[in-house]
């Protein structure tokens, strides 16, 4: 299986090659991840992919490729197919104070270049998650960031409090933007003051590194991002899914049991890029980008727009090996460019002067 891996790529899949204009590339020839020369391997090993996504408290990831919440369960489901120890971090399934049964099926459907889901935060509750997976996570060197959701500020605070100090929990990602449940917290993500309040309350409840996940379902995300930063978040995750709809094949009702679903996948990448680009210009805390990453080019795009790390979600379903491969390819890309770290790739596409058109406001919106 391994030996045939090169020839085993699915039919018709063309994986975009990374084109780099650097002259240094030619000198190295075409480095091959599978069989680098000794010198190349030494150079590759010297490249530092680690990144601290919460500089105030310290959450150093071995590489900037994370798995997105909800697409990887609790890290154990993919078994031997994915070597979790080689990931940057795992964001686990959204966890609430009490168990939740989730939404009525059907819950997922494919859409052009993406998928709609409305799982509805099905999970066994924070206590069960800690009991069942805490010991497993403790034995891993990959950091596990627990994604938490709630109906009220008290819920968020209580979940965060219970996670505080649990061995194996490296951080908290605040899901204030789940579009699929009536009171799944979306109200916190669309209102600046509510976002500030919930972030500040959780900040007081825990010393764990705190990421807050933004919703794209707002007219302007920047004031909300700023409020979250002011309230003490260590980093911002952008973006959650876009609210969408699919129709049943008989055209008599909505397809999903919950009517609405969240759109993810390559279809939303431009939206995610735009939001990362905007947020990067108004906050100084790190941004973890998410939205439609399927290849190294997507990772580089997000880094260029100011993200320090990226999460991969929907693409895992088609290509579980992508997670590990992206890390390898990023290392190789650094080698090609003669870099010892990927950090110089961050923010290169951001406007170079204050007052650039993109930073002025909502000029492109209807």
């Amino acid at each position, binding site marked *: 299986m391994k030996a045939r891996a090169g020839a085993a790529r699915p039919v018709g*899949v063309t994986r975009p090659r990374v084109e780099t204009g650097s002259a240094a590339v030619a000198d190295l020839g075409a480095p091959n991840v599978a069989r680098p020369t000794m010198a190349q391997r030494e150079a590759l090993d010297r490249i530092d992919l680690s990144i601290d996504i919460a500089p105030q408290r310290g959450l150093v990831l071995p590489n900037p490729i994370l798995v997105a919440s909800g697409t990887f369960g609790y890290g154990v489901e993919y078994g031997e197919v994915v070597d979790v120890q080689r990931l940057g971090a795992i964001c686990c399934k959204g966890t609430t104070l009490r168990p939740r049964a989730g939404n009525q099926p059907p819950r997922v459907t494919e859409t052009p270049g993406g998928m709609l889901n409305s799982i509805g935060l099905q999970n066994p509750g924070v206590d069960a998650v800690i009991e069942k997976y805490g010991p497993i996570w403790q034995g891993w060197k990959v950091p596990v960031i627990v994604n938490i959701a709630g109906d009220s500020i008290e819920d968020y605070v209580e979940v965060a409090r219970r996670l505080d100090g649990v061995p194996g929990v490296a951080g908290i990602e605040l899901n204030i933007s789940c579009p699929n449940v009536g009171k799944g917290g979306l109200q916190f993500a669309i209102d600046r003051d509510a976002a500030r309040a919930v972030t500040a309350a959780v900040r007081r409840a825990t010393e764990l590194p705190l990421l807050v996940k933004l919703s794209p379902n707002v007219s302007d995300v920047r004031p909300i991002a700023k409020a979250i930063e002011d309230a003490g978040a260590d980093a911002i995750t952008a973006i959650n899914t876009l609210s969408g709809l699919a129709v049943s094949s008989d055209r008599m009702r909505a397809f999903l049991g919950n009517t609405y679903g969240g759109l993810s996948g390559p279809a939303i990448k431009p939206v995610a890029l735009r939001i990362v680009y905007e947020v990067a210009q108004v906050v100084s805390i790190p941004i973890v980008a998410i939205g439609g990453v399927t290849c190294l080019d997507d990772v580089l795009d997000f880094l260029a727009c100011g993200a320090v790390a990226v999460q991969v979600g929907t*693409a895992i379903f088609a290509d579980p090996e992508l997670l590990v491969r992206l890390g390898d390819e990023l290392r190789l890309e650094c080698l090609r460019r003669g870099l010892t770290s990927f950090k110089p790739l961050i923010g290169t596409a951001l406007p170079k002067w204050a007052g650039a058109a993109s930073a002025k406001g909502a000029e492109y919106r209807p």
Partner: protein
Amino acid sequence: MTMRLVAAELVESRQILPGQWLQSFHAPELATGSRAGQFVHVRTGDYSGLVLRRPFSINTADPATGIVTLHFRTVGRGTEWLTRVREGEQIDMLGPLGRPFEVDPRSHNLLLVAGGLGMAGVRMLADEAVRDGRQVTILFGALSASHVYPSSLLPDEVEYVVATDDGSLGHHGYVTELVPGYEAWADQAFACGPHPMLKRLAALAAGRRGRLGVAKLGRKRGGQTDPLGSTAARRKTFLQVSMEQTMGCAVGACLGCTVIGVNGMLRVCREGPVFAAEEISWEAIS
């Protein structure tokens, strides 16, 4: 066998019925490690447009030749792409996935009930049962004679009874109407097909003991019954069904493919696709 990513080479592809295809793949890892009822998650070629894999029941698996077959209907862009794959090309399969049918070692007479493409869900069980020396009857329901699965593709040892909705071949009516004639003969039943069909079969299975006059005598010694959903409990049940649901990851991570069970949500990919009929909350299934 634990799941793995397998490069499966297409050996043969043919249309066996209008819009229905039978494809053979060389995938020794899957052919030896799979059991009836399990499925594979197939990656489609055009990732830019199709972001999800497609789940297919393993139709047959032959360890001797390393060949697994898939039987599917073209329903959309993913399955249309699959029909265009050429012989010799390799496609990416994740599998084997899900839990298989559980046959009680004491069961001699197996009733397999398939509706339309549901044949793909139970087809491999016929092979396993014949190999183990059991008697197999397949009841098959289709729209019309032109949609009936060819008997030449079934083992010779199998009794094959057909029902068509329009009466153009075999029994005129639903396949479920044939079941009462076999419920005394059958030790266990296994079904795959549209959810209304499975729902009707579950209702029939629930009343079977009463109709046959089988008394449930006393309490089981030891007082312990196997927990619902366990392999042991499934093995003892009369009816097992293979369910279908739109699927995301197929490994139990995304919780997308749930059906409603009597004790809460069940993942078709992980707790299923085969369930004991008693595990499913049938009133919630339409």
